[in-house]
């Protein structure tokens, strides 16, 4: 399997570390909603088909990537920096941080 890192180009999967389901939503840090925390910590989607995953290019630039991978064929349809995730930026703002 090849993952095309936006920095480093196409690299073998051996250079990457799987960092889990990319669909998980981390609750607000101060949230006491245990169900939401439980879902975030323990629940994982397991789709047969396209899956939104986080991979770290740990043997390369060390960036975390948001990868859409088909779990049936291993076809990768998109790779982007996880940092570019606007949801996370919006959430951060909502927390009232600079």
């Amino acid at each position: 399997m090849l993952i095309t890192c936006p920095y480093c180009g196409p690299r073998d999967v051996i250079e990457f570390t799987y960092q889990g389901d990319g669909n998980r939503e981390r609750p607000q840090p101060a949230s006491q909603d245990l169900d939401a925390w439980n879902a975030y910590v323990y629940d994982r989607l397991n789709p047969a088909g396209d899956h939104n995953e986080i991979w770290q290019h740990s043997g390369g630039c060390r960036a975390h990537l948001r990868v859409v991978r088909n779990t049936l064929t291993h076809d990768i349809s998109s790779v982007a920096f996880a940092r570019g995730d606007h949801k996370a930026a919006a959430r951060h703002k909502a927390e009232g941080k600079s």
Partner: protein
Amino acid sequence: MSPRRTDAGGRIDRLRTIRFTFDGAPYTGHAGDTLASALLANGITLFGRSFKYHRPRGVLTSGVEEPNALVTVLRGEVREPNIAATMVEIYDGLTAVSQNRFPSLSWDVSAANQLGGKLLSAGFYYKTFMGPAIGPLKGTRFWMFCEHFIRRAAGLGRAGTAADTARYERMNAFCDVLVVGSGPAGLMAARAAADQGARVILSELEPHFGGSANWSGETIDGMPGADWAARAAGQLEGYDNVRLLPRTTVWGYYDGNVLAALERVTDHKERPGKGEPRHRYWTIRAKSVVLATGSFERPLVFPGNDRPGVMLAHAAERYANEYGVLPGHRIALFTNNDSAYRSALALKKAGAAIIVIVDVRPELSGEMRELADEAEVKILSGHAVVATEGGKALSGIKVQRFDMINGALAGDPRSIQADCLLMSGGWSPTIHLASQAGAKAEWNAARQAFLPPKPTQQWIGAGAFTGSFSTAEAIAEGRAAGLSAAGGTAAPTALPVVEAAPGDPDPAPVFEIKADGKSFVDFQHDVTAEDVRLAHREGFISVEHLKRYTTLGMATDQGKSSNIPGLATMAEALGKPIPEVGTTRFRPPFSAVSIGSLAAERFGDLRPERLTPMHDWHVANGATMYSAGLWYRPMIYGHPGETIEQAYVREARATRESAGIVDVSTLGKIAVQGPDAAEFLDRVYTNMFSTLAVGKARYGLMLREDGLAFDDGTTWRLGEQDFLMTTTTANAGKVMQHLEYFLDVIWPVLKVHVTSVTDEWAGAAIGGPRAREILAACVTGTAVDNATLPFMGIVRGKISGVPVMICRLSFSGEMAFEVYSGAGYGTHVWEALIEAGKPFGLVTYGLEALGTMRIEKGHVTGAEIDGRTTARDLHLDWMLSKKKPFIGSAMMDREGLIAPGRLELVGLISLDNQPLNGGAHIVEALDEADPHDSIGHITACCYSPALGKYIALALVKDGKARRGTRAHISDPLRNRFGPVEIVSNHFFDPNGSRMHG
């Protein structure tokens, strides 16, 4: 002269004699022989004993699919079992032994097993080891006792116990076209692709390129096939864009056209050449693959088909044509197809007498009759072999009239004398790699075989692999595949001309002759046709279940010869056509792969090692080094005659009495920098870091998201936006990844940068009542008194001219300082500290003394932060800030994590003055023989010089409440049972008066 060596012919080098031993007896062969061909040439037909019944077995095939002739090859103390004799190239000094026999190959006591064949039928193990469900033996130890012996009697080779000293290596390769298999199809494909300028790799599992051209006796372009193949391979060698890999088995086809291959670099040599590994594991990423893997000939299933002397027809042809060996002098053939006639003729030409061809088909073509006439052999058409005669070697066969429409036998059986019976049950394309690549095989009724599916990845098939069994077709398909794989178009030049014996590629649909006696389907796992039917009667109708219940196709040969006959038998029992029964999917590896090659450099002396800057000094000064992960650290600096315990007790005592110094360069160090660094640390640690003053350090604890403890260490604030975090040695990588994940994925807006600086700093911790005096004696540019350098304070200065950073913190419980310098100056600073410490009695101490002093202080390490303990369990709840959320704060108060009955950190004191054992369990009961349930376990133990006692840290159920009570440790494996007192984990100086000074 060997009894069965032909006078001429073959590709062996008759001028070179090779000496080897088999079961201790010396033999000779020629260069180019396999162990199988050399033993056959010596008249040996008995190679091994079978898996369950210990039946005598000979050699069935001439290649990688061999199920019977498995041997163990010995090299010094190292033994490698279950190697096919057909794949072992002989070399001077080769030592091979047979397997699964006692006391000897020809006289084996367990052969009695075949008399009780009904007992050892399909599912024997499942039925037997469940034990009796009722009656006096139900669930008894007696039954488990028997199991031991039954399992010992069954089996193949015995694994060795000596460490494998061979070296293995890994290689990555990239190419435009990978050609797997170098028969006529593969050679043509490689040439065609190479001529297009493509980067080509051609792999061949045998030592020589050419595949069937080496033994088919056909003529290609006017020359013998073997010469044509040698010339073609020689030409390819001259191409810069072609890499030839002989002795290389492509064993796995993975996603993204990545293939795995095993190159046997030196197995055929007496000793490896300089720098040569034994095996090389290739990972090949190919734009396109040409699968030219050929086909396997199938055995026929009939009673006694496993007797030594019964062999596949093409294998005998190969032994004669390639190795100059006749597998017998009076040879009979049994076939359902035309290919055996060519074999008969080849053996006749090589000098054997061909007695009879038994053909299940009633009508034969004129071409086949002509071939038979040329071989001077009588044909018994519409007949079948119903039994074989002889003991450990074939002496004759029984044949009977056979109706292939209904499988009925008629007339009286008659005996024919023969010392070798060749069988051919048709051919199965070697579609393993295509199946691994992801697609389902398709049944072809004419060929009576599964043909390769439509490609699901970038591969093209050619030759016998596609079901095109003639060499002319292979040559045409090979060239077309090579061109297409390289993106070229059809070349106008003429194809090589093949002169070959005629033959219809389609066999008669006959797999089994039903008659009395054991008819083997899977030779290696001793599965008979009757076992398959029994499994069906017992309700196993899925082919996947059939496989697992009977173990059909599950031996080391993975059913290369047995799959199709097994399926056919099952299909017949089910009354369904074969394609409806389906086939199991092939999975990697295609053939056995050495574990060593998978580990390759990541093992033994080639494993990377991490050395601290002061490593050479430690070694030169008597340290016993200890491997901790990839790191090497001093365990003790022993004096002559000291035990490990005496050494660490001396080192720890001296540290507490005067001063000691230890190398702490291995601690993980991460620079956390940026405007939001303090905010980030507040979120990462359970305690506050934004309130930490510049020039001060603080001890911090991290939790995981699930609320369990993760790692601890001190973090130093070097500037407003500049922190130096330290982690435990073992978790340095994990913590780094953890921080990066949160910065990248969860809080990308935080302006923080993290950098691993573990290797940039050398660290020395110096502690003890006189540590401050030692520093004062060697540090310039700063004072080190209590006002300038208070507890958890940081100063910068110089030691022997080198800039250093000093933080006053303590792991040992003494007044202690960590001195950091640039890694390149580590030894220089270390030596300066040692020199300055001489008047003060400074000692160097290692991990053992470090551990001893931390146990005395009750500090936690990875043994206690084991992924199951919470901050509360470790009495670190004082570090859990209530003023802010942090990673793990939401989950740490979950019901289960605050419930009673959790394992909590305690100290233990040995009451019988005997050492406590790491990993020993704590029990409440006093009865050693019946200690009842464990209430916890020891995580760390030592002799404490400060207390004069053997002590330990332990995780004990409700440990805090048990302080002051007594229990026992139970360690039955090491025969240790003794009383302990449960105390606080802070054994020594609980108020910290020594480190605060």
